[in-house]
């Protein structure tokens, strides 16, 4: 298979294609797609062309196929960037269109590309207004997400980062539910402030590097004083921490996800910030990332996130907010893994980012399915519906078990690796983090009980329809992913091994590593 794909030259064009295709498709969807709401309301003139949602889905499906081709040409045995493309872009300042994947970004790209069509199909009737514009924004957002994962040039990365933020702003603001303006405005304010600081840091880094390159590999070789590293790391980490909703920068996430359409809530939950920490913040500023104080602060924040997120999930009445807080809790595990900086913990963080993309998304879709049927996501409006909607009940239970990390599901793999890796480095912190498994069980089972079990007392719930075949198809995909990665995670672990090791080695051996600073505790 790999030889066949290589003979097509896939490695040379797949990444640019994945970035440009959704943009092209967005134009087609916006201007060629039919708006179903205009057809439904007699007042307006119907628009022509095929259903915009179908076009969007087709485009996302092509994107997913491209990502599978990317997976196919990837050689796990080779170290470094693969399928990389390096085209001149803004030659004056040395910025290049430089993209590529390694074992860390590959699973994320594939996960995102597969997730998008599944999420659209799983929330098919969630958005029925102005579907051409909706589809176009979703496609632009896809380019942004993929771009963040594959960019090797920092300016290109920044562009992709903004391309991820801006469509989201409109998607939440225009298609969001209640209190949409407040939620989307706050989202933009929070992330914009964070990313502006990052832009300044990128510019400064570029300047220090001689003003000729933005490439990650080149900038890593620029010698930085400890102070500069601290400041720049701070700017980067703030941007990434805000985007990934690390406590205490988390408050925008439940509001935005609560207000957003299902599909957008799914994309908001993706842990791109955590990925960016592994890709940029740690390798570019290794001494700062490994500095005892900074590291301890971040690890403690992660611990707080784990417990605090879980306790707040326990206190929510609204299902979407509950899922949000559980995802905040999971981010704690991921950040813990990133900064414990052991092979197991970093690989655990990588697979946890993928897991979170699967599990949290599946939860949002399931909640969205209830919302589409009942118009509410208040847990109190449900109860005892397991009898009425058995397939839904099975799916929700499975996904919730993955959320609380039951062995045999993907959630366990990530948590276990993060915790065992952290234990080797910071035993006390690992023990505190492990207590998160108890809290997770509390909020997870509480939600299951309130939604599925107890007495079926709401008359409206007696006539709920079970998952349609479309929804079943989507959820089966998620179920397969959850169990497959739970039993055989090697497909990802094996690919991420070398790249994760590179992250850890960056902290020890790269030009900017801790020679000048108090050494990391694992240094010999």
């Amino acid at each position: 298979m790999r030889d066949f794909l290589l003979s097509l030259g896939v490695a040379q064009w797949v990444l640019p294609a994945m970035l440009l295709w959704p943009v092209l498709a967005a134009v087609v969807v916006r201007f060629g797609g039919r708006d179903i709401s205009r057809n439904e309301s007699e007042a307006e003139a119907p628009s022509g062309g095929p259903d915009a949602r179908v076009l969007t889905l087709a485009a996302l499906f092509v994107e997913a196929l491209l990502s599978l081709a990317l997976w196919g040409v990837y050689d796990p045995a080779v170290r470094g960037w693969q399928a990389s493309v390096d085209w001149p872009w803004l030659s004056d300042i040395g910025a290049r269109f430089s993209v590529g994947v390694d074992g860390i970004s590959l699973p994320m790209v594939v996960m995102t590309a597969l997730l998008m069509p599944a999420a659209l199909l799983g929330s098919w009737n969630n958005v029925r207004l102005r579907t051409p514009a909706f589809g176009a924004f979703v496609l632009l957002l896809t380019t942004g997400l993929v771009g963040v994962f594959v960019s090797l040039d920092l300016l290109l990365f920044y562009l992709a980062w903004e391309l991820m933020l801006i469509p989201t702003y409109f998607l939440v603001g225009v298609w969001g539910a209640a209190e949409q303006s407040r939620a989307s405005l706050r989202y933009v304010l929070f992330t914009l402030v964070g990313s502006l600081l990052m832009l300044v840091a990128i510019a400064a880094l570029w300047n220090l590097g001689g003003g000729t390159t933005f490439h990650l590999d080149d900038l890593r070789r620029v010698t930085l004083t400890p102070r500069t590293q601290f400041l720049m790391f701070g700017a980067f980490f703030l941007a990434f921490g805000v985007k990934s909703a690390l406590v205490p920068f988390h408050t925008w996430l439940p509001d935005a996800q609560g207000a957003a359409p299902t599909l957008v809530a799914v994309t908001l939950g993706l842990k791109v910030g955590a990925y960016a920490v592994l890709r940029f913040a740690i390798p570019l500023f290794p001494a700062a990332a490994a500095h005892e104080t900074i590291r301890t602060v971040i690890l403690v924040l992660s611990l707080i996130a784990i417990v605090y997120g879980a306790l707040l999930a326990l206190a929510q009445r609204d299902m979407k907010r509950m899922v949000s807080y559980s995802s905040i809790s999971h981010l704690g595990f991921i950040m813990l893994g990133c900064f414990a900086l052991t092979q197991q913990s970093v690989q655990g963080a990588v697979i946890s980012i993928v897991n979170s993309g699967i599990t949290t998304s599946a939860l949002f879709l399931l909640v969205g399915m209830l919302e589409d049927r009942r118009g509410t996501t208040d847990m109190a409006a449900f109860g005892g519906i397991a009898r009425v909607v058995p397939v839904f009940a099975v799916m929700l239970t499975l996904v919730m078990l993955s959320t609380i990390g039951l062995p045999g599901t993907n959630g366990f793999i990530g948590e276990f690796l993060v915790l065992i890796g952290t234990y080797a480095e910071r035993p006390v912190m690992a023990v505190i983090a492990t207590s998160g498994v108890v809290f997770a069980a509390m909020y997870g089972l509480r939600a299951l009980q309130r939604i599925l079990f107890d007495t079926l007392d709401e008359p409206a719930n007696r006539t709920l329809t079970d998952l349609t075949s479309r929804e079943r198809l989507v959820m089966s995909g998620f179920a397969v992913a959850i169990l497959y990665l739970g039993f055989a995670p090697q497909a990802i672990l094996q690919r991420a091994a070398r790249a994760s090791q590179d992250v850890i080695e960056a902290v020890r051996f790269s030009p900017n590593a801790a020679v000048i600073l108090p050494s990391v505790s694992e240094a010999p």
Partner: protein
Amino acid sequence: MMPSIAPSFLLALAQSATTSGTDRHPLAGSIAGLMWLLPVLPLLGAVINGSVAITSRSRGLRGGVAEPTTAGNLLVSIVGPGVVIAAFALALAMFMAMIGAGDLPTPFIARFASWMMVGTLVIDWAFQLDQLSMLMVLVITGVGSLIHVFSIGYMRADPGYARYFAYLNLFVAFMLVLVLGSSYPVLFVGWEGVGLASYLLIGFWFDGKANANAGKKAFIVNRVGDFGFLVAMFLIWVTTERLDFVGAHATLGGMAGTSVVLAIALFLFVGCVGKSAQLPLYIWLPDAMAGPTPVSALIHAATMVTAGVYLVARAAPIFSGAPEASLLVTAIGALTAIFAASIALRQWDIKKVLAYSTVSQLGYMFVAVGSGAYAAGVFHLVTHAFFKALLFLGAGSVIHALQHAYHHTHRDADPQDMRNMGGLARFMPATAVAMTIATLAIAGVPPLAGFFSKDEILAGVFTRAQGSPLANASLLGIPGSTLLYGAYGLGVITAVLTAIYMTRLLLLTFFGANRTGDTETSALHEAPAIMTAPVLALGMLTLVGGWLNLPALLPLGPVGVLEDWLAPVTAPSALRLTGTGHLDHATELMLVAIAVGVALAGILFAWFRYRAQVTNKVDSPVDTSVLARAFHIDRFVDAFVVRPMNAFASVLLARGVDVGVERFFSASGRLLSRSAEFVGTRIQDGDVGKYAWLLAAGALALLAALTLS
């Protein structure tokens, strides 16, 4: 040496499983390579029954009329018990192969696939067959088969029939993974998996909030234990870089007495305390009785709750290297035994009596494995599986009969309350006989199974108290011998209490006048054969189970079979804790006399104390005694743990801190915009060029600050 009962294609599969090590294991290439099939069979059953449950229910709804049901579904009745019986047959074939293979000093390990390989962390999907796991597999599939058959009768009218068997099959699958796993993580898959199945089955009738709550409570309390298990695994890996039993134990065995081994043992024991319902994490088990009664028999008496005992026996090389931890295991076991037995004295719900009795008997098992008498602990695990499963199934038959009677007359009365029973021996003779055997067995009357296993535990503790490495160790300054004598004393008192509460149960249920109700009495009848047959089969096992491990004192047959069988697994560890101390004949006879004496005394006491007439539940005053309320522990936990935490989460964090954090950011945002406004009004004069200059200057200043620092 190979039984030729397996078809050749299965053998080919068996041979494809790779074995570890360079030496070829005697069991390599034999039917033992089919270990993977043991859990896969019930898993398959779970999938089939689950599909039946889902599909037929949605079909029923489309009709939109009555409650959709799978009651008595023929496919389910065949597949559900069938897969477990098939697994039992396979287990028997493996057992034959093991016997045929002769001495097996090392476990047979079959590696199927890689699970996680991350740096130096290597975890395989691998199963391990040795004498201990073989015994557990036989108990699980054997007793499991009987309970599955019983369930056909017990659950046949339930609309959730298919769902029930799906869960029950799922449980057996995970339980087999638990005992077959060759490493701590694989064992943990089964460990949490059985917790899941237990959660689903406790909440099986989830319409009642109490039932759903009970399931949730069981899972969460178990998770507290699992927290300890996880930390123990981290410690094991960090210390030995291995997580498989053989590899980890090889290293840890050489580190006996170090604080690391002690810590590992203590954290592992936290897991055991949760799963096996010991003090203080026992609180979930009495509530777990909300599940269907056969579930209580299988999960909450015979198999899952004994997983903690299995784990201590499995990790014997670790526990024997940490005498303090072993003493703690014994102490907790002894305290739990007497604590739960005293509560059982004053319970009126027949299942609650049995639930507290189970907690108490599990305490005995921990006394045994804690004091290094691993074989005795496992022996009691096996005999307890026989007679406690019998007691629960018998109680199930009784409840079933009362439910039918009340259903018949449309009366709403409690079918589990013993005050509504009485004199049932007349209506249900077979059940009464079987229950009487089991009661005598658990009370410790010779020559029934419980007598031998309990006597062996008490004699074992007494021997070790007299002089052993364990007696020379100490826990929190208390000498080991004192603790062991104490455990023996508590064990004897518990034996008296056990005899009392079990005789009380028997008297209230089967003897005296019937209190079910005048019109209901005529509707009472014996359970159908499909329910009485498994009960009687367990009765036979209870009668002869003691012959598994006869003491040398009473050579009524081959002596110490089970102990010899388990010797390759546990003997070295047992030797480390217990030395070679032996009881002289006179002392041993005295111990037996004490054991039999207290059992008979307890039975006699109960006979005179509880023969007095009681009134049925409606006419009786509400029992508010401390024992009936189980020392108010649940209220205490609710008031001091559950409520404060919920209040902490919802009031302090959600409405306090989280809102505070949000306000802080909004306020600083406002401050920023206001100061910008303030400056802005001075500069904002419409000169676009000025804006651009200011913007550029700002960016430059920032750049300079970062570049020059």
